[in-house]
């Protein structure tokens, strides 16, 4: 498994994915620099909701799909699957390695945004102590909430030769976030809305889904992750190449 990941690493080391991971943090940098208006007693939390709103609602779910499509693109393009699967490795190893790399890229994206948040906080001279626990829960939560999205997008990206098809699926599933996130009825159960529900600070009462318990949200994330991942994995192990 480790050798598989080390092999994958060579492929993405000098790839365009790294540029993409910077897009959302740079936009957040602009929003934070020009859009921050201190209101009350929780400046870090306010900054967090300001920076993570667009990121968690759109960019993060979209990136999960774009990364997945890119990780599969160079395999579809010139016979990479065929070459890899004729090697002494199991298909399970190949699929798991792709998933691990995908989650790693999302973690890098989250880390970059966290760094941006800390920089902006410092430049605005926020004096109150940094609420590490809240920030960590928010960024790690948003990352974990991407598990089902990443699983489905990897499945779709492995299945379709074309680069555009998985991205179309991704956009179609992410767009409803804008509506669903305010809905008490659907929001909590829609996997694509989970990164947002997980990232925004819980002191922010603007959204309908927030009265739900952490346990319910975790169950939705884990449940959909298991279904999507198992489906993609089973598909890949039987795919003729």
């Amino acid at each position, binding site marked *: 498994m480790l*050798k598989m990941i080390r092999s994958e690493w*060579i492929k993405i080391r000098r790839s365009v994915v790294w540029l993409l991971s910077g897009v959302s943090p740079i936009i957040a940098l602009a929003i934070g620099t020009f859009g921050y208006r201190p209101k009350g007693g929780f400046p870090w939390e306010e900054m967090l909701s300001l920076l993570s709103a667009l990121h968690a609602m759109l960019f993060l779910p979209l990136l999960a799909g774009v990364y997945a499509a890119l990780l599969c693109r160079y395999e579809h393009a*010139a016979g990479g699957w065929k070459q890899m699967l*004729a090697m002494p490795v199991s298909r399970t190893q190949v699929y798991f390695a792709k998933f691990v790399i995908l989650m790693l890229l999302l973690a890098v994206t989250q880390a970059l945004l966290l760094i941006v948040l800390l920089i902006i906080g410092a430049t605005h001279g926020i004096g109150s102590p940094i609420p590490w626990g809240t920030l960590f829960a928010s960024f790690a939560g948003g990352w974990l909430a991407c598990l089902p999205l990443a699983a489905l997008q990897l499945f779709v990206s492995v299945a379709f030769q074309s680069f555009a098809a998985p991205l179309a699926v991704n956009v179609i599933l992410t767009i409803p976030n804008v509506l669903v996130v305010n809905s008490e009825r659907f929001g909590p159960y829609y996997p694509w809305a989970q990164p947002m529900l997980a990232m925004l600070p819980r002191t922010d009462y603007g959204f309908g889904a927030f009265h739900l318990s952490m346990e319910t949200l975790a169950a939705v994330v884990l449940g959909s992750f298991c279904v999507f991942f198992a489906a993609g994995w089973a598909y890949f192990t039987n795919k003729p190449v």
Partner: protein
Amino acid sequence: MSNQAWILETRGLTKRLGGKNVVNEVNLAIGKGEIYGFLGPNGAGKTTTIRMLLGLAKPTKGSVHLFGRDIRKERIPILRKVGSLVEYPSYYGHLTAKENLEVVRRLLGVPRSRIDDVLSVVRLTKEADRAVKGYSLGMKQRLGIATALLGQPELLVLDEPTNGLDPAGIQEIRELIKSLPATQGVTILISSHLLSEVEQMATRVGIIDKGNLIYQDGIRMLRERAKSRIRFGVSEPEAAWRLLLSHGYEAAWDRHQLTVERADDRTVAAIVTQLVRQNHQVYRVEEETASLERIFLEMTGTEGSL
């Protein structure tokens, strides 16, 4: 138990695709150290067979044994000893040749020095640090062969390694492959849609057509099947042709030359006598040995499409 003498053996190997058997009851047998030419016109089922040999696709029916082991049960230990290039070379365009080989090397766990070894075998050492997307097709094919050699395989499976190359590129790849069993100690399965391409290097051939293996034996046996025919140069060939037909000879006239199939000495003598008696002037009587290519074309009935 499978026969230990064969490095590769299939029994009743069948693949059903789109409602028909594109590989039908194929029994391949390849011995150690052989260069096995796997021949067939385009669409005959070569690539489909090779995919099943490597465990890339599952057979509808039948079995594949490599090194006496079943590919379904022991895929990973088997593939450790197999190097392959299927249909067209695989590569990552944004990486250099060295990085492409490193991707595979990390999977195989062979020493780093193997990369330089195989690069020099396929003579890509000088180009090794260039991105592969700028390579010519011939260089990509060579990189594909280098990749296949990386793990020091006992069996090398090359699917149409010269496809799409110009004559010089074909010649280069052919020389390279011919030199391998001696220098690398491998058994080679090489597929092609041209007999002439593998003729000089293959020790055995299998011919597949429309999914059926229609011939499998040494290349010498195939040559012996080369039927000779006699060509007659006469003053009025068309009239001579009618005459020979009326006497029951297997004569053929294609508006250029008059030929008779399967004629022994006595028959030739009799034909010449007949012709002279009817006042034909006989200029030439020549024996024409059928080329292997013609036999191949006759067997597969694809003269037009090649």
